[in-house]
């Protein structure tokens, strides 16, 4: 014999408590916080470094760097002179809201307009952990295949922006088979409002529309 008890409790609640704390802190100070998610090597750090340099007169950016083992990416951001806090996850495949909460305490948040979080390279796990961010940015690069929205729908469904990176590799004559329009269509099926910017963090192509979106989003937040 046994008896059953209905519980109906949300799991992950420890993480959610910290996420709420982070989003309250960011909300009170009207800071935009973007959580950047992609597979390893899609170009997150390259995009961040270029963005920081190109918009530094307009938008003050700070970075939280999640890395499994090293501080190589944090060093690349430091070279731009933006404030950066490194989180070594020690093997974990995603950042947790508690880790971000600790990192926010170390950043000069009051002096910034925008905080980027570079999540651990992984398209699956980070999408399930809210960090208290204002929005998620998913990066997909041209060498990863145009079937990724179909295979990993969660992150495309949840993101505000999709950056299709490394489009310099798609120039005429290149050996990369990647249909930007297919990615666009599949991502839109999952998420009608998603902004899609094809870019090259290497050549700078397409980056201006991304910068405009950032400028507008920070302004909207600070304006109201």
């Amino acid at each position, binding site marked *: *014999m*046994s*008896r*059953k*008890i*209905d*519980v*109906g*409790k*949300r*799991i*992950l*609640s*420890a*993480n959610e408590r910290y996420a709420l704390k982070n989003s309250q802190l960011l909300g009170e100070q009207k800071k935009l916080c973007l959580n950047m998610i992609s597979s390893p090597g899609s170009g997150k750090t390259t995009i961040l470094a270029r963005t920081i340099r190109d918009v530094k007169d307009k938008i003050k950016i700070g970075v939280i760097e999640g890395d499994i083992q090293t501080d190589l990416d944090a060093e690349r951001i430091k070279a731009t002179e933006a404030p950066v806090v490194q989180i070594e996850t020690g093997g*974990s*495949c*995603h950042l*947790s809201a508690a880790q971000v909460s600790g990192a926010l305490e170390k950043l000069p948040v009051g002096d910034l307009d925008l905080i980027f979080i570079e999540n651990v390279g992984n398209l*699956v*796990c980070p*999408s*399930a*952990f809210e960090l208290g961010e204002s929005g998620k940015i998913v990066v997909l690069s041209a060498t990863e295949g145009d079937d990724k929205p*179909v295979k990993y*729908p*969660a992150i495309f*469904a*949840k993101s505000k922006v999709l950056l299709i990176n490394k489009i310099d590799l798609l120039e005429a004559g290149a050996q990369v088979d990647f249909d930007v329009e297919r990615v666009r269509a*599949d991502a839109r*099926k*999952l*998420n*009608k409002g998603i902004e899609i910017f094809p870019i090259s963090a290497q050549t700078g192509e397409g980056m201006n529309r991304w910068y405009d979106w950032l400028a507008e989003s920070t302004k909207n937040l600070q304006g109201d």
Partner: protein
Amino acid sequence: MHETMVAESLLATISDEARKQNAKPVSAKISCGMLNAVNDKVLCFAFDAIAKGTSCEGIRLEIEHKLMQGQCKKCNERFDFKLNCPKCPKCDNEEFDLLPDAPLLLEQIEFEME
């Protein structure tokens, strides 16, 4: 994988209920949406490992995956969203809202009777 963290929260919640009920749990039902990225086998494995030596040792986990729901803008029909066929099954309309993904929930615990 992040299932370890889910398993830890789950263990804490079930242990809590078990203490309140003053009974031994035998199984637990969990439900989640498509976007939670929970792999059943990995979660069960992680849970078994951390539950060793606790009141939850050996309990059975049942995991239900709920499909994402769309709602037709024309006829209001609610339906299971499928990426390979994203339209209303009733009226074929392709304009619909994607409803929020189901959260990860501990639905039910089954306890041993004294």
